[in-house]
């Protein structure tokens, strides 16, 4: 009995110490570096779109990026109640001056050109670009090859890296049309003003499944052909002292398979989507 009690006490103490030390270690990394002491401020878009954030409610933890944010926070030593959400546009995220967030996630691609004014974490997700067409349109019959796709009239959301990507990798024959957001691009393809849309693969999967009536995924670009596969990173102020802690958190999530698990929970599997043959 005594032994059991003793053993239990020791175990409990050890557990408590372990937990405490882990918490202290994590908190030490972030201590004094967050916007508000003891709290983590995370930014997302306004509005935030599924499947990244479900129902425009990031605090629910539902949606890929919302789940990622809470997982990163947890590894940094902030429990769910210590996370505050704010909203920013892309322009607010990159403007010089004080940031109103600790990190910002809304499918920001890590691009070398961007690193002059902001910092990115290690990637939390890697994807590629995909082409969406309308079922029943002439474009729907296009072969998923470079030569076939070249002939289409493309549209995309302007804030994304779709246009520079297409201009470099595919060089379409017709001028692209660009829009403010996904809703406008979808309106444009519905009105037959464009043949095809370029999205990142998860957005493409979501749009074809939910937003666009009769949407069809024509294909995804091969990752190896893409000069750098589209890597999403958490955006931070240039020289943010938080970066090592955020990077460590993401690496730890990747190492124990949590990232993969969140991904499979919220993002549709793109494995079945044909890969575009860039050699033809």
């Amino acid at each position, binding site marked *: 009995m005594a032994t059991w009690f003793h053993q239990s006490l020791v175990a409990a103490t050890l557990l408590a110490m372990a937990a405490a030390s882990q918490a202290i270690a994590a908190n030490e990394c972030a201590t004094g570096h967050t916007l508000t002491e003891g709290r983590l401020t995370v930014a997302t878009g306004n509005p935030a779109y599924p499947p990244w954030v479900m129902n425009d409610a990031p605090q629910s933890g539902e949606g890929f990026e919302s789940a990622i944010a809470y997982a990163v926070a947890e590894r940094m030593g902030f429990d769910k109640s210590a996370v505050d959400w704010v909203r920013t546009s892309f322009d607010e995220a990159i403007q010089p*001056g004080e940031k109103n967030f600790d990190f910002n996630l809304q499918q920001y691609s890590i691009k070398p050109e961007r690193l*002059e004014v902001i910092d990115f974490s290690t990637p939390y997700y890697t994807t590629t670009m995909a082409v969406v067409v309308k079922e029943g349109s002439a474009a729907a019959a296009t072969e998923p090859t470079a030569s076939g796709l070249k002939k289409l009239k493309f549209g995309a959301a302007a804030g994304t890296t779709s246009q520079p990507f297409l201009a470099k990798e595919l060089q379409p024959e017709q001028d692209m049309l660009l829009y403010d957001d996904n809703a406008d691009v979808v309106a444009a393809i519905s009105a037959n003003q464009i043949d095809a849309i370029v999205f990142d693969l998860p957005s493409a999967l979501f749009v074809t499944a939910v937003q666009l009536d009769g949407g069809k995924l024509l294909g995804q670009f091969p990752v190896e052909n893409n000069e750098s596969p589209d890597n999403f990173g958490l955006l931070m102020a240039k020289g943010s002292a938080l970066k090592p802690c955020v990077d460590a958190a993401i690496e730890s999530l990747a190492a124990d398979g949590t990232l993969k698990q969140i991904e499979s929970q919220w993002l549709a599997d793109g494995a079945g989507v044909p890969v575009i043959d860039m050699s033809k």
Partner: protein
Amino acid sequence: MTPRQRYEQSERRRSVIVAAVSLAAVGAVLAWLVPMAPGWEAVKRSFFNWPILVKTFPTLLKAFMLDVMIFAWSLPLIIVLALVIALCRNVRSAALFPLRVFGAFYTDIFRGVPTILLVYLIGFGIPGLGLPRPWNSPYLWGTVALVLTYSAYVAEVLRSGIESVHASQRSAAHSLGLSEADTMRYVVLPQAIRRQIPAMMNFVIALQKDVALLSFIGPVELLRQANVYKSLMANFTPYVGAAIIFLCVTIPATRYTDHLLAKQRAQRS
């Protein structure tokens, strides 16, 4: 040179020197103060980034050609439609009263709706009806939206020009046996248009900038191209580049308008 002329010349020279010195002083103070702001380095990196400007400027300039083209085909359409609307608002015969109502209605509606809204509604709405290509082109319907808005404004300018031509000019034309239409065409309109050219130039300048609104419905013109570069590079310098390009066109146009106005004032006095 008379003593009076000599005196006036020296006064002129003196005021030019005073103006130049004060301008230089203000410039120097600004150039000295602004970099002292703590955020200046960051602002410089984000807004006045020379390597980014050099890299993006040629493409921006190319994108601007699209603005120039939209402007070039919109302007004549605007003038023609504005003329028609102004004439509608000016018909006097009772039988054509519905035309007057139409003209008034038209100017009320299209001056009352923000241009960007009209570009959205027409640029997305009408192609959404299911028109086949190329009749659903955003260029086409975006242009229609610009033409509708601007012709409403220009029609009002023309109408007030027509009303400013003195009744005695109409009387003189009528007394010579000229018809209503000939009186308008040869006597009233030429004077109205001439009188209103400076006012219309202001709309021409505004149109030069508003063609960029078409970027909202797809076309990748200057503003949109700058927007793409801004996203790609996370840097606002391409916007500054776009502003420079717009200024290169609008400043001369504005100066020219002022010159026309000054000339007109001189003629009147």
